[in-house]
């Protein structure tokens, strides 16, 4: 006897099978003439520079952590949502209190700035007044304060 979840398992198996068959099928048709340049990691035609496995912005991990907490709590709410009508107002209040605690946690994270993402800092170009001697050597360089102030006002 096949249960409903057994059918889902067949769906999964079929999808895996389909991808494998499709990739193998093209293997018999397509050419395979690898060269050293083709097998290089793509970096817009340049030789790849350094390891791509770089240090990542810590924000991604904070988002993942907050997601984990929220997701677990949302999953806990599903059974409540299915059955709260049986218990009337007290049943609703239990869920509502849980939701409010969740909301308070959210407010805390918001206040702590964990929901802020690094914003691009706009740096207006600073205009410099450069004077050169006749030989082309830089003699003096001073900031033109008025013009940069104007630029900052615009930003």
């Amino acid at each position, binding site marked *: 006897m096949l249960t409903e979840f057994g*059918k*889902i398992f067949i769906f999964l198996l079929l*999808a895996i099978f389909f991808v494998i068959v499709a990739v193998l099928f*093209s293997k018999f048709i*397509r050419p395979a003439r690898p060269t050293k340049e083709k097998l290089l990691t793509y970096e817009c035609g340049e030789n790849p520079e350094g390891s791509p496995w770089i240090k990542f912005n810590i924000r991604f991990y904070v988002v993942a952590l907050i997601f984990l907490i929220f997701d677990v709590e949302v999953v806990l709410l599903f059974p409540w949502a299915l059955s709260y009508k049986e218990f009337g107002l007290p049943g609703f209040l239990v869920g509502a209190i849980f939701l409010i605690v969740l909301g308070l946690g959210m407010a805390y994270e918001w206040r702590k700035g964990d929901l802020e993402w690094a914003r691009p800092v706009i740096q207006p170009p600073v205009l410099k007044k450069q004077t050169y001697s006749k030989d082309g050597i830089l003699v003096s360089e001073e900031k033109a304060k008025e013009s940069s102030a104007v630029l900052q006002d615009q930003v």
Partner: protein
Amino acid sequence: MYNLLNNLIGNEYVAAVIAAALPLFVFILPFALAAVLLERKVSAFMQDRLGPNRTGYRGLLQTVADILKLIQKEDITATDADKKLFNLAPVLVFAGCYAAFAAIPFSGAYIGADIDLGMFFIVAISSLVVAGILMGGWASNNKYSLIGAMRSAAQMISYEIPTALVILSLVLVTGTLSLHQISEQQTAYFWNWNILGGAGLGFSKLLLIPFMIVGFIIIYISSLAEVNRTPFDIPEAESELVAGFHTEYSGMKFAMFFLAEYANMFAVSSVVAALFFGGYQSPFGYLGNTLGISWLVPLEQFFWFTAKGMFFVLVQMWLRWTLPRLRVDQLMTVCWKYLIPYAFVNLIIVGLITLL
């Protein structure tokens, strides 16, 4: 459909395999062929171009030609890539997105697996796609891929929470998680759809309407983000990241990612349609019932389901060519500071109203 096949063939496992293969070969592959062409045509007309018009009559065979080309393309795996994970990623992405189709009711007569936890299952199995994308991006050993994969994962998991909260508020109204039953409850006419307060009559139905519309908007925005469509396409922002997590993929493996993306587009659209717009139910009764032809009804239901799904896919395409891409900080702000608080408040108010 499963029972019909079972009676016809006499072996339940063979019947189950055929029933499971139906959405793939009858629906997803033709849909992907049509949708790719449609997207190119829609974008062309929006930008005042002609679009593909050389292959076949007015370019109708363009995607078939593309598929033939993709099959013949050389499949390159970079020497630096992690081969095992690199090959596993398209399998996971496609399997995760195809398994979601198991719980989607295409018509009253066909549903892959009629489980009570349908909606919950779809939310859960979609996470397999995130794992596949992260795996592909990491195994490619490419900077663009890794940045794209990280952004994609952060975005998809963030937008899962507003989706789940809206589904939760809908569960408060319908009292079931099975998409089949949710569709059945919205039967007969369009004023029974959940976006118009569900099938019940009375004061609470009227009160529910604005909150259902808010819920629909929230779930539609987050479903756009979950399939990485514009305006939320920073994971594969082509002007900065080449192609995002699938930069290194070529040939048939790339085609699998592409197919999964289009299948996912339809999956989220049809889930939205099933939750809020009656699923496979016709808005004005069935021709088959009026004429007394019973086998016409499931076909009509299939037509309405496809039409509703295609409508939301078209809206996705329309949005893609209308709105500019969001920045990564704007993306997170939209999710965490707007959608989730609104969805929270919406959930509590809907809970109060259904208690009345």
